[in-house]
């Protein structure tokens, strides 16, 4: 597979090819350069406009959201939408949904990363029969997307009696079924010198000890990247919540937001945008603070972020 493996090169942060013309242009600004910045800046603003619009609209009085949709900055700032939004539905506060989402995302993430790390160690470092087959299985699980499995998995979980619970949203992830994370950590382990393992082995460390005492402390960056992706994907996951969670009280945020968007419920656009803004907050914060890890993950795997 010709996967774009470019983990060292970090396009978001590194300005390694520093601009040699940067200094001289201070005194002698070329029109070409201005044109470049005007065009790129306009495109960049156009890209983020919808999101900025949504966030700012959530601070407008709800009756004004649609009436003044052409206007970006609210004339009257208000927090009413947030108070109304957090009231939630039928007595269930929106905080409850956030709690549900956090519980699902965090447990599934810990399970995924812990199991993927040990599996990655086995495939990347240990020689055992069936290792190559496992590698192929891992690639297969990377290519098999969750959506196409929705009916097969639903029918299986139905047989297991897992429907209408959080189990399908958490348990499978604890068994490293997302090959992406195994692959991500494997890539990283491959970069750790084998001499470290051998030294530990000479000191009497078992193969399990090597994983816990040598590999684990060294793979932190890959683990952080994996946690970030897993958390964001679980947080945004709509389909499995739609399939397996039917109790309104147990809804995660993604499903609760859908309630605002339903034509049957009252169309309180202000509250809807307020809660939508709250729901993207974790991803935005991760984006702001962990950009480097995100970029690394995207570039190593060539997968969609």
């Amino acid at each position, binding site marked *: *597979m*010709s*996967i*774009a493996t470019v983990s060292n090169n*970090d*396009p*978001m*942060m590194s300005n390694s*090819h*520093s*601009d040699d013309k940067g200094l001289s242009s201070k005194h002698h600004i070329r029109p070409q350069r201005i044109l*470049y910045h005007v065009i*790129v800046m306009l*495109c960049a603003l156009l890209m*983020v406009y*919808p*999101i900025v*619009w949504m966030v700012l609209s959530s601070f407008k009085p709800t009756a004004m959201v*649609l009436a003044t*949709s*052409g206007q970006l900055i609210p004339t009257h700032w208000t927090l009413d939408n947030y108070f109304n939004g957090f009231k939630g539905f039928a007595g269930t506060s929106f905080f409850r949904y956030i709690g549900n989402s956090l519980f699902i995302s965090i447990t599934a993430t810990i399970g995924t990363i812990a199991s993927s790390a*040990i599996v990655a160690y*086995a495939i990347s470092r*240990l*020689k*055992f029969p069936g*290792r190559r087959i*496992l590698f192929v*299985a891992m690639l*297969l*699980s990377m290519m098999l*997307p969750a*959506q*196409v*499995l*929705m*009916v*097969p998995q*639903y*029918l*299986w979980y139905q047989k297991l009696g897992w429907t209408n619970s959080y189990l399908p949203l958490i348990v499978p992830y604890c*068994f490293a*079924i997302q090959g992406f994370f195994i692959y991500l950590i494997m890539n990283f382990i491959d970069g750790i010198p084998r001499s470290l393992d051998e030294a530990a082995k000479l000191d009497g460390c*078992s*193969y*399990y000890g090597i994983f816990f005492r040598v590999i684990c402390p060294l793979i932190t960056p890959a683990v952080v990247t994996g946690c970030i992706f897993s958390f964001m994907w679980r947080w*945004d996951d*709509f389909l499995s919540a*739609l*399939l397996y969670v039917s109790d309104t009280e147990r809804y995660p945020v993604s*499903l609760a*937001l859908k309630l605002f968007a339903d034509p049957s419920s009252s169309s309180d*656009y202000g509250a809807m945008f307020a809660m*939508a803004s709250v*729901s*993207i907050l974790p991803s935005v914060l991760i984006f702001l603070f962990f*950009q480097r890890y995100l970029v690394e993950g*995207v*570039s190593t795997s*060539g997968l969609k972020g």
Partner: protein
Amino acid sequence: MAIQATVTQSGGMPNPPQSGVKFRSHGRLIRFLQKEKVAGVVCSAPFIFGFLMFLVVPLALSLYYTFTDYNIIGEPRFIGLDNYIRMFTKDPLFWQSLGVTFFFALISTPLRLIFALLVALLLLRNSKISGFYRAAFYLPSILGGSVAVAILWKQMFAADGVVNKALGLFGIHTQFAWLGNESSAIWTLIILAVWQFGSSMLIFLASLKQIPSELYEAASVDGANKWSQFWKITLPLLTPTIFFNLVMQSINGFLAFTQCYIITQGKPRNTTLFFMVYMYDESFTRYHAGYGAALAWVMLLLIGIYTGVLFLTKRFWVYDEEA
């Protein structure tokens, strides 16, 4: 994992034996677990179990259900090939949703990759604010899959939405309902997909920076201008990246669900009915789970064929690093 941890500890420091026999068998077990082969299997056990239990078994089981009439609640009733016969001969919605999905995936993926490449080329030039530019172009792909953006999109393209207001600024005053029109509705979803080109852009940026600058220097010594440098050096060296992204992202396109489910629900008149949404409706709102499973298997097969065909075309246009 708890078991392995205790094994490690007792492996280093054996507990005092309670009885000779017990100690011997205990020690033998530890020695057995310490073998590299055994350790390998033990460490990969979670994946072996998960892969079988949550991927292979459900898929195999559902293959059986494709030959049954199954309403989820009752018992499956064997009906042979009826589901497949119905799909291919008596179900116009199957063909409709297949057409819509392929149209969506085959338009949005190349467009997304073209935008990603163009912007990556633009951002290759470094300046003090290129960090900001990259962040701005990348942000939509972080948020694009969320329900929040889906409901935002629905509002933006409404008759009194932002898009029409923005057109008003350019003197085009319209109350056009983008989502209500049979030919424009699908394009709102395509625009949403193309808008999320940020992650491909990052991948292109990373690959572009890996192209050795000597190649360009040599080319300009030979008198090649920027334009032919792009076509003769940059693009050929990017083809492996383009290929991989084309495969992965069009597969994702075939399987798009959430955005369609929330924004259009297939309306108007099934012109935006995605295959996955149709499969969901058949299985979980009309309770034709056997038929739904058959739809899933047909899609799996189609994706397999599609990927296979793309791999066959590979040697005609993808630059081979080993060659």
